[in-house]
């Protein structure tokens, strides 16, 4: 059986499974549709959160990013996991006790104001929609690469599949499907990593393999990698930070509080039966997420090692001189996987010095000593460009693993993208049908019609996401940063103050959310253009790129959150305190006793 048939079979089987589960778990009531009837156990819910959380970005891109960034890539690892500690302790149990379906509903009730709830809906919609576009693009890429169809067809197929199980199954269907998707994606990630760890270090556990010696040598993998990459003019793998210590600090903080404020993740804690279950759900979620996230740095470093080993075999596995003429791979002798990926354009070779060998090094290095060595060796510039996104997808091919592993990785990538898209659609649908239509426009809507409105808004969101996935405004990377920035700077502080400050009033919360949101958008748009439209950047206005203490736009969410807190407390001091019944409500939310099943009523 050839590779293509194997991929069709494996991907087809997983899809049949997802759709089967969706049919089995059809939602009958609004409570089942939005919150799976509040009856999902903590372990299952943890898995569903894991699948929900780990998108195409975590699955496909993250290890590649770490592979290029080295130590600095740790900010993704710490940022995207550390947020769960905040979520578990500061938000989840209290929101579960509050017992409503959605985040805007909490903000609206706690701050006794429909305006507050509407501002929250706006933040939620922008954050979720921008995030989902990236997922649909990811679905398109994965389908086209693995099923041999065009990217457009890939997106149409993806839209259809998500539509089927999200619209009919609701949260109940999505939750159980995500459990299945988690199993697929985690085995797709870990199995190749185990094989590669054994090949390179003899240790089957990638997390330990990364700290072990290279097979047959008395030197650790990381130390060897440091030596080889610095020989090639790159920054030292284990110490190169991301734009300075301050930027790394703020970036990590932004990702952490952004994680804790993302509505599609928070919403998951409404599906468990009790407050205690909400606390353990977060722990289980982090175990399931941690399984992939602690493997990722091993995948990253080993993929880098394997790549360098392919190109300069004697240097990695022995102690050959990297500048010697015969140390580099002859292009004509390159392995098959390089030929396959060259066809996609994601891997490119250009023989700049015409010696028929591949020179892969950092030609932007600032070190004079290195430049002198490169010149003495007759190198005329870096000849190989490798797109970071192929690191995970090509990993099994680089390690020459069997076809079924490659097929499994394809299914895993699709599972990651589809499950996150479905979770985001759920958050969007709940916000539109519940927080806008029911709470603002048609308060006396029947449960049946609300359910219908939820399904229609989901369908519309799929079409918009699909359209933007087909016609990307060219801002895939920027939008993810924006989604985190918005969640970090607007929703997280508002929810947190709603629980931890009894006296916080609606004026403070609304002004805080708006201030945090605007300052973040202002800084991001300065660098990336107004709503990411090219040519509308206004960097001069803020004094050049990263003018705020060298902080990059992606890292700015934490600053936005600080502004949010600051403005909220200032305004709060100048305006009347919240009514007594709201303060009593906050006290009730703080204690677990008396938690009820979630409901949408007011």
């Amino acid at each position, binding site marked *: 059986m050839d590779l293509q048939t194997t991929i069709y079979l494996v991907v087809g089987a997983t899809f049949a499974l997802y759709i089967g589960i969706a049919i089995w778990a059809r939602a009958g009531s609004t409570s089942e549709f939005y919150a799976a009837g509040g009856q999902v156990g903590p372990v299952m819910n943890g898995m569903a959160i894991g699948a929900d959380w780990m998108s195409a970005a975590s699955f496909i891109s993250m290890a590649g990013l770490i592979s290029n960034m080295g130590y600095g*890539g740790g*900010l993704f690892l710490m940022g995207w996991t550390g947020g769960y*500690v905040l979520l578990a302790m*500061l938000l989840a149990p209290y929101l579960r006790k509050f017992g409503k379906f959605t985040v805007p509903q909490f903000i609206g009730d706690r701050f006794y104001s429909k305006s507050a709830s509407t501002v929250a809906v706006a933040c939620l919609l922008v954050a979720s929609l921008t995030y989902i576009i990236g997922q649909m693009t990811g679905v398109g890429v994965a389908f086209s690469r693995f099923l041999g169809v065009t990217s457009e067809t890939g997106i149409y197929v993806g839209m259809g599949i998500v539509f089927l199980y999200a619209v009919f199954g609701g949260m109940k269907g999505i939750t159980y499907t995500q459990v299945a998707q988690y199993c697929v994606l985690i085995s797709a990630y870990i199995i190749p990593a185990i094989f590669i760890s054994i090949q390179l270090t003899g240790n089957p556990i990638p997390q330990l393999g*990364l700290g072990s010696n290279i097979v047959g040598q008395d030197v*650790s993998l990381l130390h060897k990698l440091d030596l080889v990459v610095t020989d090639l003019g790159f920054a030292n793998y284990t110490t190169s930070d991301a734009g300075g210590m301050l930027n790394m600090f703020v970036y990590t903080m932004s990702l952490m509080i952004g994680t804790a404020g993302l509505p599609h993740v928070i919403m998951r804690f409404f599906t468990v039966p009790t407050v205690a279950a909400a606390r353990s759900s977060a722990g289980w979620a982090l175990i399931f997420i941690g399984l992939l996230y602690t493997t990722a740095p091993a995948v990253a470093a080993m993929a880098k090692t394997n790549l360098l080993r392919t190109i300069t075999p004697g240097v990695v596995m022995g102690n050959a001189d990297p500048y010697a003429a015969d140390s580099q791979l002859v292009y004509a002798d390159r392995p098959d996987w390089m030929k396959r990926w060259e066809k996609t354009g994601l891997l490119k070779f250009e023989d700049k010095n015409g010696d028929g060998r591949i020179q892969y090094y950092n030609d932007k290095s600032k070190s004079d000593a290195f430049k002198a060595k490169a010149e003495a060796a007759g190198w005329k510039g870096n000849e190989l460009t490798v797109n970071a996104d192929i690191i995970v997808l090509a990993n099994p091919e680089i390690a020459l693993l069997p076809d079924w592993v490659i097929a499994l990785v394809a299914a895993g990538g699709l599972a990651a993208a589809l499950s996150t898209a479905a979770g985001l659609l759920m958050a969007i649908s709940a916000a539109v049908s519940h927080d806008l239509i029911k709470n603002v426009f048609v308060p006396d809507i029947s449960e049946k019609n609300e359910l219908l409105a939820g399904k229609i808004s989901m369908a519309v969101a799929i079409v918009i996401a699909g359209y933007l996935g087909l016609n990307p405004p060219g801002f895939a990377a920027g939008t993810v940063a924006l989604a985190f920035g918005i969640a970090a700077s607007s929703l997280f502080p508002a929810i947190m103050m709603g629980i931890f400050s009894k006296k916080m009033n609606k004026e403070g919360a609304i002004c805080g959310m708006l201030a945090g949101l605007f300052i973040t958008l202002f800084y991001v748009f300065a660098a990336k253009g107004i709503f990411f439209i090219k040519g509308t950047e206004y960097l001069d206005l803020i004094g050049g790129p990263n003018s705020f203490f060298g902080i990059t736009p992606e890292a700015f969410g934490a600053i936005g959150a600080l502004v949010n807190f600051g403005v909220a407390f200032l305004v709060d001091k100048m305006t009347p305190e919240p009514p007594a019944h709201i303060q009593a409500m906050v006290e009730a939310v703080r204690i677990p006793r008396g938690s009820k099943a979630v409901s949408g009523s007011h």
Partner: protein
Amino acid sequence: MEDSAKAYWSATLGLLGKILVVWFLVSFGAGILFAPALNSIHLGGYPLGFWFAQQGAMYIFIALIFYYRKKMGEIDRQFDVHEE
């Protein structure tokens, strides 16, 4: 009742404070601020600062959440506000 609710909340905040200190120390402390200094120590083949940033912090995060759940359950029962 009023006093007991206050005591419960301050016990909760005390626990959160302790956990957040550890949370901060392992990630922002050992993983970022002190990482260059810690890198001179090795844990197997890992430089220690690098290990905290790419492995250790995550393991400790998981432990922290389960520790929180256990302690919080005890506080709930001590002040008799746990779920039936």
